[in-house]
């Protein structure tokens, strides 16, 4: 579809959204006059989502740009399988658009979006249906070849050979942690979410999440200067 055609269709769709009684996405706020005059690039995630609820596709495109990297990275760290990441990642952004009317302002958008992402990842794991294995060059993801190997990442992080090996061991061990401990480390450390936000996303009490963070890191700590004994233990609790 040409972009000119797309623009026309988009405008037509916006008109239809305004006139139809039950369109998708539909407005849920009676008034968003406070959004007027705010440049779209400066709008908060939450305001962009409200614009999306009003049928503004540009607003959603901007949200996609802001979050595609963190959502895909989260999935890769949790699932480990890039083929699954590609298919689930697309589903996340389609569902978030489809279910935009269910978002309630001023809930933090990152919390809402990661809840969707997490649920899809869990459902996928339960089904245990793997996407077909493909060559890395066929995947529509960027950075897999560069950031997928612990030793490569560690090598870029430091020139200290001993420290490099420790970092690589810790990253390898992260993969084998029990899912609940890995999740709190991925969300809290890699995605930089607070315990309160993780509580909202996972439905687990913050104190439990703190405990998982402690015990997860304790297992990773056994990898430092280790000879692989801890590695076996971490792997054994998968």
């Amino acid at each position: 579809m040409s972009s000119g055609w797309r623009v026309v269709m988009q405008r037509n769709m916006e008109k239809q959204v305004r006139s139809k009684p039950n369109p998708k996405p539909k407005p849920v706020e009676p008034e968003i006059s406070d959004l007027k005059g705010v440049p779209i690039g400066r709008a908060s995630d939450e305001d962009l989502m409200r614009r999306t609820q009003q049928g503004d596709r540009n607003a959603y495109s901007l949200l996609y740009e802001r979050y595609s990297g963190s959502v895909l990275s989260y999935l890769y760290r949790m699932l480990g399988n890039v083929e699954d990441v590609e298919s689930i990642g697309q589903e996340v952004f389609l569902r978030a658009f489809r279910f935009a009317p269910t978002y309630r302002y001023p809930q933090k958008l990152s919390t809402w979006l990661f809840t969707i992402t997490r649920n899809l990842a869990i459902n996928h794991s339960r089904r245990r249906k793997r996407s077909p294995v493909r060559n890395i060059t066929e995947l529509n993801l960027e950075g897999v070849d560069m950031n997928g190997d612990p030793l490569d990442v560690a090598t870029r992080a430091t020139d200290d050979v001993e420290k490099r090996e420790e970092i690589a061991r810790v990253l390898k061990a992260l993969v084998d942690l029990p899912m609940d401990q890995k999740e709190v480390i991925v969300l809290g450390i890699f995605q930089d979410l607070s315990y309160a936000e993780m509580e909202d996303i996972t439905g687990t009490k913050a104190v439990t999440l703190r405990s998982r963070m402690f015990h997860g890191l304790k297992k990773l700590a056994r990898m430092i200067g280790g000879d692989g004994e801890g590695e076996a233990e971490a792997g054994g609790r998968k």
Partner: protein
Amino acid sequence: MTESDIESDAFLKLLTEAMRAGPGSPEWRQAVERVRASGASGEEYQLLLTAREHLESGKEYRSIGAGPDFTRKVMEGLDADANASSRPGFDTTRVVAGLGGMLVVGVIVLVAMLWWKSSDATNRQDLAALYFPTTTSLSTFDSFTPDGWRKIGMLPVIVKRGLRPQSAPASAGEVAGGGIVSAVALPTSVASAVEVTLDASAVSEDVAAQIFLTDQPQFSEDRATSDHELVWLAKGTDVRVITPDGKVVSPAQTLPASAGIVVRFVVNKTHIIVSSNNTTLYTGPHQLDPARPHLVGIRFLIKPGVEPVSPAITSVRFLGLGEK
């Protein structure tokens, strides 16, 4: 350690907060001090903190982004979804209306472009009135430099939640410069726009962040500058626009301490509109050679020995009038 231990022990609460927030955070500093003060009994906690430091060093692990085809598939999916929800079946009338609308828009755009080309005197007003519906290219700087850019200058830059400068190398003179420049030139035959989004939460008087448009492909090694360029410059909180003849042509503007600031260049063969933070700073001739390719770049200039505190460039979007 149980959950009730965490609830009752302020130190464990601090420690778990430090583990999450990571090195550099206030909680981290407090936790490290407490662990050090506890001597040998704190060895186990010290190992935990070291493991956390290693995770910080390896934070790029499995950091990935969407490729162009991934984005295209998502956008096509959204199109299909929106169409399915608003149009239950194939509607010939709507398709014809859409085609008619497209034709009308095409004619309007064509007439507008012809009119614009015929009158150089009205170039500025035309530029200001143009609407750019098509994103021809988008580069986001989350964790790595995307394709389509090449590095310039001696000052190293990194991509970590935005493109940022690093400290000046020891061999630097009074000022060191470095950055990136687009591999593909802006079209000079038709109008186009560039939107650079930056996070100005942290700035420093000793570091300048620049967005520039140049007609010269060669850059100096020490400062990463070219001989002929139009520059949007932020030094500390002061914003300026400088034309290729070296004149400061914009009124003073203060850079707000926030993320999501958009610097916009709207440009055609002869003229440019530069705006930042939704305020027009300069409208007029860009003075660049219309026969040469116009390249967009980002550059940082820093004095040796100072902290590289600077606005971070989070994305660059190239916009066009029509087809990709």
